[in-house]
C-alpha cells in the first residue's frame, strides 16, 4: 500500500481478466445519435422520483452535498499472437456509487444492483459521514446539456462485430513481418470500451454521457545474432469503431518496427547530471510528473505538495504556459462532463510562467472558494472522484529544436518513454526513456536506450531554458495511476531544453 507515489504507466489498456464482447449490447442496444436523458434513465431502470427519494436518504444526516453516479461499461479485447487473431475477451461492469460530502469528509458506498432498495441501503451507508439533523431540501431537477460533445461516435463499438475488427490486427502483423527480416514475434492488441453514465446531485443537476474509447497496440520482437529486442507502438482515442483505419494500421506497424530496430545500435550513456533536450510529443510526461500531479488540488488542500504555497507565484520562465484540457476532440483524456457533473473545460495551470490554477474536484474547489475545474474523475462507480489530469500540455514557444540540440556540448535527446512517477512532497519525479540519442558537440550521435531520468519538479521547471514551436500531442495509451485508481490521460509538448537532469547510466 504505497500512499506517497503516483504511477504513470503506458500500458496496453485493459487489466487481466477484463475484456471481450460480441457484436451486441447485453442490455438495450441503441445508436449513439439517439441517446437522450430519458433513454439513459430507462437504461438504468430508474425514474426522476426514485432519484429524489434516494437523494433524500443520502442527505438525511445533514450532508452538505451528495451525488449518485450510474455506470454501465462494456470492455472488449481482441489479441493476435503467433500470427493469428486467436483470443478475445469482454467484460461488463454495471453499478451505482453514492457519495455524501460533509465539509472535506466523504462517505461512499456502491452497489451492483441498481434497485431502489439497494440504492437506499448504499445511501444510508454513505450518509453516515454526517451526523447532524435532516438535510433534505426540496429539489428542482435540472438537466444540464453539454456545450459540445467532444467525442461524437459514428459507429458504436457495440454494433461492431469481432469479424469487422479482426482484419486490422492481421494486417498489422503482416506489415510488421514484411518490413524487417529480424522480426521473430508480433503481438497485436485492440481494445474498446463504451460507458453509459448517468449523474445526479443534490443541487438537482442531472446529466448523462456516452464515452467511447478505442486502442490499438503492437509489440514487435526482433532477433539479431542472438540479441533480442522489443519495441511497441500504440494509439488511443475517444472514438467509435471508425477509429480503425488502414492509415492507423500503417502508422502503428511502421512505428513498432522502427522503435525495435533502433534498439540494436543503442547504448547506455554515461550517467550523471547533464542537459536534456526533450523531443515534441511524449515528452509531455515531464509536465505530467514534474508538475501536473503536484498541482492536483487534493495534495495542496492537504498541504502535502511541494507547490502548496506557490499559487499566483512565478514558477518558471514567462515564455511558458501549461494547460490541462478536457476539450480536445476525440482525445483520450477528454471529458464532456467529469465524474461529478462539472462540464469539461480547459485550465491554464501555468500562464506566462505564473502558477495560475490548481486542478480541482468539488471538495478542493469548495475548500479554496473557487469553481471546480472539471478534473473530478474516477476509475469507475467503485471509486470516489479525485482531482485528475486530462490532456496536459505546454504551449508553443519561439525556439527551434535544432538550435537546442546545437547548443548542447554533451547531453541527450529523448522522445520515447514508457512510464514515469513522482513523489508529491519531495517533488522528485522520474521517467523511463525507451530510446533517444546522445548529443555530442551539438549533434545527435549514437542512439541510447533503457535509462531512467530523475529530477526535482520545481527545479526542472525553472531549468527549462528553451521552448520550441513544434508542439505535438502524444496519442498513445497513457494511463495514470493515483490512489489505486487508473484514468486515461494524454500529454503533449513542444521540444524543450532542460539545462540539468540526472540521467541514469554507466560509470565504468
Amino acid at each position, binding site marked *: 500500500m504505497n500512499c*506517497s507515489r503516483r504511477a504513470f504507466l503506458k500500458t496496453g489498456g485493459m487489466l487481466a481478466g477484463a475484456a471481450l464482447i460480441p457484436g451486441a449490447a447485453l442490455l438495450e442496444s441503441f445508436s449513439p445519435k439517439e441517446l437522450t436523458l430519458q433513454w439513459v434513465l430507462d437504461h438504468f431502470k430508474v425514474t426522476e422520483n426514485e432519484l429524489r427519494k434516494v437523494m433524500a436518504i443520502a442527505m438525511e444526516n445533514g450532508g452538505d452535498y451528495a451525488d449518485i453516479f450510474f455506470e454501465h461499461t462494456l470492455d472488449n479485447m481482441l489479441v493476435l499472437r503467433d500470427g493469428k487473431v486467436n483470443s478475445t*475477451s469482454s467484460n461488463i461492469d454495471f453499478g451505482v456509487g453514492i457519495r455524501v460530502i460533509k465539509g*472535506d469528509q466523504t462517505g461512499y458506498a456502491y452497489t*451492483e444492483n441498481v434497485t431502489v432498495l439497494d440504492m437506499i441501503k448504499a445511501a444510508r451507508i454513505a450518509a453516515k459521514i454526517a451526523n447532524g439533523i435532516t438535510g433534505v431540501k426540496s429539489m428542482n431537477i435540472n438537466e444540464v446539456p453539454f456545450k459540445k460533445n467532444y467525442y461524437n461516435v459514428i459507429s458504436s463499438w457495440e454494433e461492431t462485430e469481432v469479424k469487422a475488427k479482426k482484419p486490422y490486427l492481421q494486417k498489422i502483423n503482416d506489415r510488421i513481418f514484411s518490413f524487417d527480416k529480424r522480426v521473430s514475434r508480433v503481438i497485436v492488441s485492440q481494445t474498446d470500451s463504451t460507458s453509459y453514465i448517468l449523474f445526479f446531485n443534490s443541487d438537482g443537476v442531472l446529466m448523462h454521457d456516452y464515452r467511447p474509447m478505442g486502442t490499438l497496440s503492437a509489440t514487435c520482437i526482433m532477433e539479431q545474432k542472438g540479441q533480442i*529486442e522489443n519495441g511497441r507502438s500504440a494509439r488511443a482515442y475517444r472514438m467509435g469503431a471508425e477509429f480503425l483505419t488502414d492509415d492507423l494500421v500503417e502508422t502503428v506497424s511502421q512505428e513498432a518496427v522502427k522503435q525495435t530496430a533502433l534498439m540494436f545500435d543503442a547504448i547506455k550513456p554515461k550517467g550523471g547530471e547533464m542537459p536534456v533536450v526533450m523531443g515534441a510529443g511524449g515528452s509531455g510526461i515531464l509536465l505530467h510528473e514534474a508538475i501536473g500531479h503536484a498541482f492536483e488540488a487534493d495534495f495542496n488542500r492537504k498541504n502535502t505538495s511541494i507547490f502548496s504555497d506557490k499559487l499566483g507565484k512565478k514558477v518558471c520562465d514567462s515564455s511558458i504556459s501549461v494547460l490541462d484540457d478536457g476539450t480536445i476532440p476525440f482525445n483520450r483524456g477528454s471529458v464532456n462532463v467529469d465524474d461529478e457533473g462539472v462540464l469539461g473545460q480547459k485550465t491554464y495551470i501555468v500562464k506566462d510562467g505564473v502558477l495560475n490554477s490548481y486542478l480541482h474536484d468539488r471538495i478542493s474547489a469548495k475548500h479554496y472558494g473557487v469553481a471546480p475545474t472539471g478534473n473530478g474523475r474516477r476509475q469507475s462507480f467503485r471509486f470516489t472522484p479525485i482531482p485528475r489530469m486530462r490532456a496536459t500540455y505546454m504551449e508553443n514557444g519561439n525556439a527551434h529544436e535544432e538550435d537546442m540540440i546545437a547548443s548542447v556540448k554533451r547531453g541527450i535527446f529523448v522522445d520515447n518513454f514508457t512510464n514515469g512517477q513522482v513523489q508529491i512532497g519531495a517533488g522528485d519525479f522520474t521517467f523511463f526513456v525507451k530510446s533517444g540519442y546522445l548529443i555530442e558537440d551539438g549533434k545527435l550521435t549514437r542512439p541510447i536506450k*533503457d535509462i531512467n531520468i530523475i529530477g526535482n519538479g520545481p527545479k526542472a521547471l525553472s531549468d527549462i531554458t528553451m521552448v520550441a514551436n513544434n508542439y505535438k500531442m502524444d496519442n498513445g495509451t497513457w494511463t495514470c495511476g493515483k490512489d489505486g485508481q487508473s484514468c486515461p490521460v494524454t500529454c503533449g509538448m513542444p521540444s524543450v531544453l532542460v539545462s540539468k537532469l*540526472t540521467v541514469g*547510466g554507466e560509470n565504468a
Partner: protein
Amino acid sequence: MIKKEQKELARWAMQYALKKGCQECRVGIFSGSESSFEVRDTQLDKLQQAEENQMVLYLFVDGRYGAISTNRMDRRELEKFIADGVTSVRFLAEDPARKLPDPSLYFSGSEASLELYDPKFQSVSADEKLKLAKSAATEIYGSDSRIISVSSAYGDTENFAYIVASNGFEGESATSSFGVSVSVSVKGDGDARPESYWYDESLTWEGLQKQGVGKKALERALRKMGQSKIQSGKYQMLVENMAVRTLLSPLISAINGSSIQQKNSFLLDKIGQKVVADKITLVDNPLLPKALGAKCFDREGIATKKRNVFEHGVLQTYFIDSYIANKLNVEPTTGSPSVLYFDKGNYSQQELIGKMLKGILVTGFNGGNCNSSTGNFSYGIEGFLIENGELKQPISEMNITGDMLTLWSNLAEIGNNPLKSSSWQLPTLLFDSVDFSGL
C-alpha cells in the same frame, strides 16, 4: 462464502455454454466485500463500504477460445451474454493449444487447511475499525512540530471464489485480509515536504499490528530530512526488504511462460544453468499456511506445489500455465508464483549496514523500468549513504543502472528479515558493485 445458489448459477452457466456450442468450459464466481476508513489529521476523512460479485466464463469453441465476464447475474441476461460470447469466439482463428488442463493435474481436497480466512471477519465492528484507523494517527499526531499532515487508513476485504470446469474440476477458496497504513508529511528544507509511510497487512484481525505503524511512518519521514544526491560511481547497495520486490519482479517476469514462448526473455533456454549468485535459493511455496498469497490451486484448478525457482543460483523452473505448456509441448507448472521467499539469511539489516565500508542503503525506488528482452534496467532511488558501517546522509534524486543477471550475480548477502506482510516474503539484500548516477 459462496452461496449455494451462486454455485448453482455457475453450474447452470457452464451447462448453458456447452449447450450453445462450447466443447469445454470453465466458470468462476467471485464475490467479496470491503470496508475502509480513512483518517486525516485524526478526523474521519472518508468511509467506504461495498460488496461485489463477478462471473467469468472461459469458452472453448471448435478449437477457438475467448473469455467473458460480467457482474450482472440475471439468468436471462446471462443467456444472451453467453450466446453472444460463443458467437464472437467462432469468428477467431483456431488455436489447438487452447483446452482445459488434464484432469489428473486438478486439485482435489479442501483449501481450508491453509487457514486463509479469518472466521472473525464479520464480527469486527465498524467502531473497532475506525478506532484502529484513528489510533494509528493519534500515536504521532502533534508529537513533532515538523509534522504537516498525517493520513491513516484501515481497510479489510474478504474474497470468495468458486471454480467449476466441464472436465471435472470443482474448487472453492476463501481469503480475508486486514490492513492498516499511515503516511506522514513533514516540513523539510525549503519547499520540500518529505513524506513516508508504513503499513501492516494480515490475513487475521488478531495478526494485524495495532500499534507502532504511525511511529514507524514518522520515523521514516523524519530521517529523510536534508536529502541530497552524491557523486556518481559504483557502490555496494543494500536494498531494504520493503523495496526488494522491484528488483525481483523482472526476474520473475523473465521466467513467465508467456515471455519464454514469445522468445522475449533474458532467461530463455537457461533452465539448469547457473544464472545468479550461489547464495540464491528462491522458493515458491503456495502451500504455506496462513501466508498472504497462499493457495491450493491456481486459476485453472491445477494443484499447486512447493518448488525451488533458483537453487544455489541455478534456474530450476519456468511458470507455465496449460496454454503455454501446450504451445511449448511441456508439462504445465503453474501460471505464476504465489508465496516467494529466499533461504533464510544470517544477518539483520543493522548487521549488514555494519559490514559496509562505503555504500548506499536503498529504502525506496522512484520509477524506472527493466527491458524484458535484455534485462537492462534503470531505476530512481532514495535512501542513505553508508560509511564505516553507519548511515551518514539521506540521499535522493539518483538512479541505478545495469542489467539484471549481473546485478543478481553480484548478490553478496541475504538478510534474515523477510517481509511477512506481503506474499513475496523478501528480506534485505546486499549487492556488490552497482552503478549509481547522481552528481
